């Protein structure tokens, strides 16, 4: 089963300006036509559907509102949504899938994890049953396997960038680092002035993994991870991976992260709290954090202290500095065990990323992966941030899904465990690669 090779290539997010313009003109017509086609039949569908989601803060409020508006406009369908914390949710879903009692609609990231559920026959094929022309085509990559569609995006494009405190940088005569050496320099300046250079939620492990992801890409380009996903033997021992691991440990040795970082939890926003309270100067995080900060400490943003810069480039590296890592979006998929598939389809068609939801996400500083929203983004309250996200996503030569979502479950878990040990200096970069090579199954 090496279909995974084709999957990773489709994770490229390319939005040509011309494409966007053409789709904006033609897409609106298509959307209206498609919508008319479904609303007339959707009024006869009834059922109860449960949805599992992990959104927090204001994003959670949006989901709740979308669901209740849907229930109002579709009296025959009753949708209930339950919210969970990120890491426990992954476990809960896995167990529910295996036990055969998953919810009708479940939240996910696509990629290898979703594929493992698809291969086990647990996910409903929705090809042709839901209109997907309204979404940016490349975002459908992580949920399309073998030409069949297994989910639709539900919230926003989520590339990962460095967030930084503009005030701290100004006070210490720092500018956003363009290269890795600039970053190391900034780290040492901040350290001398007793400021935590970079906040890190080490306990969840994926925040640390982001450094390995970006460094590997900057050094060796996307082909390194493409080989890994394609199960090439010893692909984890690629020199780019080892060099990236080495640089990670150099960063740790330089004292870049807050003391006790391995107990700091992202699900509880503990690392972002260091940023918005002014204790830490930077954080590498997904752009969903903008909404988190808005929900918790909006003054940090409104006072102009919040800034972003892309992951620095590595001098001499092969990777394009515009390449992005992150989540292309979050998705809802329908379980095969669902007894209300038609009602779930209606929900996907009418509630997910409808006009109300799009406006709400934009107001929260999140960019929905929908075509034709340029004007809305420019007119929005957080237009600077929104246009930044939109533009880096458009300009990225390659947008790769997070390792722990793109790899199959056991391999993904091994990556997280080894990243944890790498950051704690309990294993060497060579051991990191050797341990992960063991997870490559020849299939």
């Amino acid at each position, binding site marked *: 089963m090496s279909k995974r090779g084709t999957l990773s290539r489709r994770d490229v997010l390319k939005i040509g300006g011309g494409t966007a313009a053409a789709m904006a003109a033609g897409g609106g017509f298509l959307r209206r036509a498609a919508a008319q086609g479904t609303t007339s039949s959707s009024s006869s569908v009834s059922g109860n559907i449960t949805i599992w989601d992990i959104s927090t803060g204001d994003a959670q409020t949006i989901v709740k509102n979308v669901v209740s508006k849907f229930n109002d406009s579709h009296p025959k369908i009753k949708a209930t949504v339950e919210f969970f914390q990120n890491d426990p949710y992954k476990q809960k879903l*896995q167990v529910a899938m295996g036990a055969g009692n998953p919810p009708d609609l479940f939240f996910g990231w696509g990629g290898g994890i979703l594929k493992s559920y698809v*291969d086990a026959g*647990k996910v409903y094929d929705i090809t042709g049953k839901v209109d997907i022309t309204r979404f940016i085509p490349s975002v459908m990559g992580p949920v399309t396997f073998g030409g069949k569609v297994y989910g639709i995006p539900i919230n926003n494009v989520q590339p990962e960038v460095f967030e930084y405190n503009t005030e701290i940088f100004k006070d210490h005569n720092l500018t956003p680092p363009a290269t890795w050496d600039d970053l190391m320099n900034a780290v040492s300046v901040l350290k001398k002035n007793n400021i935590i250079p970079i906040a890190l939620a080490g*306990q969840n492990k994926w925040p640390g993994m982001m450094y390995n992801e970006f460094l590997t890409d900057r050094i060796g380009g996307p082909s390194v991870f493409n080989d890994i996903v394609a199960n090439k033997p010893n692909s984890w021992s690629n020199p780019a991976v080892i060099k990236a691991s080495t640089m990670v440990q150099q960063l740790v040795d330089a004292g870049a992260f807050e003391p006790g970082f*391995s*107990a700091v939890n992202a699900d509880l926003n503990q690392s972002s*709290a260091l940023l918005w309270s002014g*204790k830490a100067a930077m954080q590498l995080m997904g752009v969903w954090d903008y909404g988190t900060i808005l929900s918790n400490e909006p003054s940090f943003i409104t006072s102009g202290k919040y800034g972003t810069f892309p992951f620095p480039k590595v001098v001499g590296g092969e990777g394009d500095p515009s390449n992005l890592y992150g989540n292309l979006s979050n998705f809802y998929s329908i379980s095969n065990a669902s007894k209300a598939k038609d009602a779930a389809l209606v929900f996907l068609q009418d509630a997910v990323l409808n006009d109300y939801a799009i406006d709400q996400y934009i107001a929260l500083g999140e960019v929905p992966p929908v075509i034709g929203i340029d004007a809305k983004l420019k007119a929005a309250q957080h237009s600077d941030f929104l246009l930044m996200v939109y533009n880096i996503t458009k300009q990225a030569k390659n947008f790769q899904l997070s390792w722990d979502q793109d790899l199959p479950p056991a391999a993904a878990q091994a990556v997280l465990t080894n990243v944890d040990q790498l950051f704690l200096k309990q294993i060497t970069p060579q051991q990191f690669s050797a341990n992960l090579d063991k997870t490559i199954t020849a299939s």
Partner: protein
Amino acid sequence: MSQRFGWMLALMLVPAVGFFFIFALGPMVAAGYISVLKWDGLTPATYVGLANWRELFSDSVTGHAIILTIEMMVISWLIQTPISMLLGIFIAGHQRYREVLSVFYFLPLLFSTVAIGLTWDYLLNPNFGLLNALLDKAGLPGLAKNWLGDPSLAFTTMMFLLAWQYIPFHSLLYQAGTRQIPTVFYDAARVDGAGRLSQFFQITLPQLRYTIVTSTILILTGSLTTFDLIFVTTGGGPGYATRILPLQMYITAFPDTHFGYGSALAVLLALSGVGLSIFLLKVTGFSRMESQMEGM
């Protein structure tokens, strides 16, 4: 006549035995069966014989987990027993203020483990936590460590959190045990001229023998299987610092989706628990139920 009694006896035992079979024996047998399979919980399982068991005995992480578990059992006993005993004996006194204090001290028992774990996680947070803030203000910033984030400290910190959670329970045991001791003994001892220390070592401690045994069995088997507090607070980390055997079992079975290997660990845990209990009962003579009150 005796036949009818036999029937009635068997009938009365049915609920307890049934419960044992369904909730204790059944899962153990199931775990034993799964331990010879390779299964990820999603796709059909394949039979792999003793491969999981071989992995168990050669895995260094499991070895480390076993050592940690044994350390935890011993250290938990060493921390909890003296403190619980002294507290329990103290609370057993009939003075009013002691009973009031005992109410407050009982409170941790009432909290859910998840609440305890999350609260202590916040209190011990190296950047925002109350403990380090207080140490700073008290002029001891050097003592403000990364309690749960430093691999060399996390295990010790967990020991203390577990002690905080369970000492109230064991002190209750000791309180009940102490109150059972007839005051006649103490009167007689005072008449014979025994001081407080003598009374403690000659009367209180021997009379508390079976309470100590009960408490010990509970501490040892409890430490062998404790899961929830550690899971909520450190999740087995940082690295492998707090990954005791029950956590290793959970982590290999669920996040790592190696149900076969996890089941093998489960069987190991269950057999260890049973073995430990039987050993303790034999060694301490608990099963003989000898009376401590000969001569009364």
